[in-house]
């Protein structure tokens, strides 16, 4: 029987982690994601023996994740924008050492201390690397509380498949709002010796090392080439997106996360007024759904990219479109969530009007 529950996004995510048999969580309080740490502190250890530890900082959290992930255990952390900024050095190390783990950013409005209201201003940081050096995270962008829950298992699966950190990029609204969520059944916590992990030397073998260091340039370049090859492989295999009413569309919104839902409503309002409008919702932000956007670029009159930032994903949309169609932008910043009505006005004024 289906197990349905009305839950906050942050809590649904935490519950999903417990149920999928996650081994450890290290985190630090920050609004609007503190419920993850609170929920896990309350529920996790007594139910599955999962380790839950409040660290002294996000810097410590991510390094605890680094240590634990090097053993092959399923570990994760969560934070919100300023905290994620603090973690970037550690994330770069994790990416280079190729450790599987899950990261969650419940994005708030920035820059600086910014606001505790929702934002998408961390897109660049999430998909372009974020920390130092050439690396990529696999980035999943949920748009519902259900996806906040589902992407935990999916994220861990991808992390272990590619030995790569996976980031769930949500926003303050998704973290805080309550929706119906179907919960997965409780799984046993299992542990597999992955061979490369630091779990104490294996009998008859030399030591294993988890490191991101190589002082020989030729060797370090080889590591980089290997990473880039892996990212290509991820781009080939793991692109996910949702198409909403695109078949007959003249105009298409491109939006991720919560904003995609607002654009879906705006597209409905547009159709009521006789305009054929669809939505492309990238679910994976890296790898980005370049091909499908390019495919539509030669079929439609224009794209409207909508984000809760000053225009970040639009760069990837434009790289996908390669000048085949106009790409306009509408965004709100500072923690403001745009309404479907204002999105529609922007569509009419900036794109449809402009394309006449």
């Amino acid at each position: 029987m289906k197990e349905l529950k009305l839950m906050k996004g942050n809590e649904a995510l935490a519950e999903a982690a417990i149920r999928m048999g996650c081994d450890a969580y290290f985190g630090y309080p920050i609004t609007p994601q503190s419920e993850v740490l609170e929920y896990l502190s309350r529920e996790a250890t007594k139910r599955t023996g999962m380790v839950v530890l409040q660290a002294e900082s996000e810097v410590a959290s991510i390094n605890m994740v680094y240590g634990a992930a090097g053993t092959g255990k399923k570990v994760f952390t969560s934070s919100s924008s300023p905290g994620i900024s603090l973690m970037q050095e550690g994330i770069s190390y994790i990416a280079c050492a190729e450790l599987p783990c899950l990261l969650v950013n419940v994005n708030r409005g920035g820059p600086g201390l910014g606001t505790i209201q929702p934002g998408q201003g961390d897109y660049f940081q999430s998909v372009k690397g974020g920390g130092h050096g050439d690396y990529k995270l696999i980035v999943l962008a949920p748009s519902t509380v259900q996806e906040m829950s589902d992407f935990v298992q999916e994220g861990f699966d991808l992390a272990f498949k590619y030995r790569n950190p996976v980031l769930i990029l949500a926003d303050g609204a998704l973290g805080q709002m309550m929706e119906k969520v179907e919960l997965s059944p409780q799984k046993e916590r299992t542990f597999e010796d992955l061979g490369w992990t630091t779990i104490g030397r294996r009998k008859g073998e030399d030591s294993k090392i988890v490191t991101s260091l190589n002082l020989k340039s030729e060797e370090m370049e080889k590591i980089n080439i290997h990473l880039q090859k892996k990212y290509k492989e991820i781009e080939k295999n793991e692109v996910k997106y949702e198409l909403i009413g695109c078949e007959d569309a003249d105009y298409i919104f491109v939006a991720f996360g919560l904003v995609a839902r607002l654009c879906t409503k705006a597209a409905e309002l547009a159709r009521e007024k006789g305009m054929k409008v669809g939505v492309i919702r990238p679910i994976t932000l890296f790898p980005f759904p370049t091909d499908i956007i390019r495919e539509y670029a030669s079929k439609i009159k224009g794209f409207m990219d909508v984000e809760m930032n000053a225009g970040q994903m639009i760069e990837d949309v434009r790289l996908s479109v390669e000048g085949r169609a106009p790409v306009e932008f509408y965004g709100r910043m500072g923690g403001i969530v745009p309404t479907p009505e204002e999105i529609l006005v922007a569509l009419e004024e900036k794109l449809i009007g402009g394309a006449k």
Partner: protein
Amino acid sequence: MSEKMIKDEGLCVKENIVYAPPQDAMYDVSTHYCPGCGHGVAHRILAEVIEEMGITNDIIGVAPVGCSVLAYNYLNIDMTEAAHGRATAVATGIKRVLPDKYVFTYQGDGDLAAIGTGETIHTVNRGENILIIFINNGIYGMTGGQMAPTTLPGMKSTTSPFGRDVAHVGNPLKMTDLVAQLPSAYYVTRQSVHKPANVRKTKKAIQKALEYQKEGKGTCFIEIVSNCPSNWKMTPIESNKFVEESMIPFYPLGDLKTPNGKEG
């Protein structure tokens, strides 16, 4: 003295070996450490203890940024490199998911007492059941001799070229004294490796600490006052003399916290 000379002079014959180097817990390779540096000795006694306790397959080490970040090239035990200052957080992550394994960090003074001060204090304060080995040679070795949090007052470095001015940059930070104040610290001691007798004492301290870890007693913290001949611009012998005459008077050796409360 070259390796060939040692062989030619017959110094390396079996009969002269008092205690063979660790056969299992250390690789038979030359280290990158400078001649006379204390790291080699510290590595060796750590490996000896690990081997003597029979825990080579049950221990995980964490070596953060600093000269000893490459310790994993010498110690044949599972090891994780860590970002500068973050060793004890990394060790916390490992120990929390593998509580039955032995876990230790091996950190320098810049790492543990400057950039990693927060992690150090909070890890000890949580009483993480790990061993922290703190090599204090009063200088940043790997980056070429800059002033460390533990550089002595008046001591010259590339960033304190006229000697450490405490009015300008503060006094050396005695981290070991600080952590000894924390209720969760189980065993805190300051040792050295500049003389054979001290090497033996340090080895004993490491063994004690790992035995406490086996019993789940909490954080053990061993400072090893050491040298840096290259960056101190001294010969190995001069540097050991400096340890004896300048470092140790400022960083006195002995136990700062022991399980029975006695201070040595």
